[in-house]
């Protein structure tokens, strides 16, 4: 079964973080929330494997 990747895998993490912040800048809370939802859906579709997405949901939902 494919496993959610939890080791560093993202190219240009600072650039990705900056792009996220730029996208949210000046957005009211509702639009900001919708933007995040669209991002999650786009990325989930790109991943494709429902089990991997559910592993990410579980991990994100767990208390810190």
């Amino acid at each position, binding site marked *: 079964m494919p496993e959610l990747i939890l080791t560093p895998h993202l190219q240009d993490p600072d650039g990705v973080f900056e792009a996220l912040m730029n996208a949210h800048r000046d957005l009211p809370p*509702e639009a900001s*929330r*919708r933007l*995040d*939802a*669209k991002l*999650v*859906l*786009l990325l989930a*579709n790109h991943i494709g494997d429902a089990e991997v997405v559910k592993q990410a949901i579980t991990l994100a939902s767990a208390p810190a």
Partner: protein
Amino acid sequence: MPYQPPRYPHHPPTDHGARHPVIIVGGGMVGLATALDLAQRNIPVVLLDDDDTVSIGSRAICHAKRSLEYLSRLGLGDALLAKGVTWNTGRVFAGENQVFAFDLQQEPGHEFPAFINLQQYHLEELLVQACQSAGVDLRWKHRVTNATPDGTLTIETPHGPTTLHADWLLAADGARSEIRRSLNLPFVGKVFQDRFLIADVTMQAPFPAERWFWFDPPFHPGGSVLLHRQADNVWRIDFQLGWNADPEEEKRPENVRPRVQAMLGPNTEFELEWVSVYTFRCRRLENFRHNRILFLGDAAHQVSPFGARGGNGGLQDADNLAWKLAAHLHGNAPESLLDTYDAERIPAADENILNSTRSTDFITPKNEAAHAYRAAILELAANHPFARPLVNSGRLSRPATYQNSPLNTPDDTPWHAGPPPGTPAPDAPTDEGWLLRRLPPTFCALSFGPAPALGLPTLTLPPEGPAATRYGAREGDLYFLRPDHHIAARWHRPTPAQVAAAHRRALCQS
């Protein structure tokens, strides 16, 4: 002219305290279909209904392909095709724009479409006529006020009270089942905190025969709306009202008319035929069989209407139960065959509940996150096909596959195509008509190329052609079908002994 419901004659009871082999309580579409199916299998049936007519309002309107195939087996196929409105296409709108359209017609080469729309009262009228012809003892204005676990019924009629005893009692008495209440059976699940106005509207309108679903349309901001065409120029319109709506106020014609007029535009004339306000629930009984009392349809399980899984699920209950009870009463199967009604129909009910719960959750977002995700999905879906499968305006009824049924004989060799055991037999065109029409309502075999002598009704089809393709079959392949036309077993070149063993297994004889 609005629909004039028939009034059926009711008579004073004459057999006080009598015992009957089968009593069905509830003359809705599920009770009537069960009665007809049993009567056609030569089982005497008494059916009690608390009213003397068919359903009030259109109620279940979307009859799925599998229901049509079942009703066709009962003899109503031509009448339904002639009277109903055939549709295969659905459209989803958000705001002012169409998001996408979908086609439910899976492939050519099936007699029945994905759906026809027909008011429940029309279907019930056809079923009542067929029940009368088949000799069902229909007793109108017989209201059951109590049932005991051993099948004793206390009944009120306009002519005074009476009592009957049932060897087998079939409760098809709806979501408010009096039999369920009498037996104190818990009926638990989920209530959706939302209200929906359901209106039947008679009009001449330019909308095509399609399912149209709007999220947040300009004529009903903030809510959803669903439109279906039915027979006789009657249209079903559902308006989502929200949890705070006052059902009594919303039902008043002076409050309904402006909602409909806003949708249709100022120049469309229409008449209201029926209006109701609903709160939807998804729930079921823990078991559908309680010794010799069996629950069917809404009495056993209730779903929200998005997906047309209530009526269609109920008809699948009837199809599943009737042949089993008939086989037992004819002495061909032990009582344990009736346990497989639970084993097959409870997973089917759970599938319907799961799907209709998910649809209702999408249509009724519960918090900010749910609103944000739904808005995101609808925005993305307009331009990107990937997001369209996420839009959930109802997952329309599909026939249950009894893949884990104890009645199935598992494949003994690998099959690379065709429907596995538990699947409803697919239709296909053949040289002498539709495949399903050529199958008897009994255990039977479907042989591709010559079959060995099996002592069973056997339909022999050529090992090439549309049917062979659909069944993934080559010369010598054989499918063994149950009376409800679910596949019980299949083989490459079976021996008669293998088929006989599968037959015994499908009757719980081994």
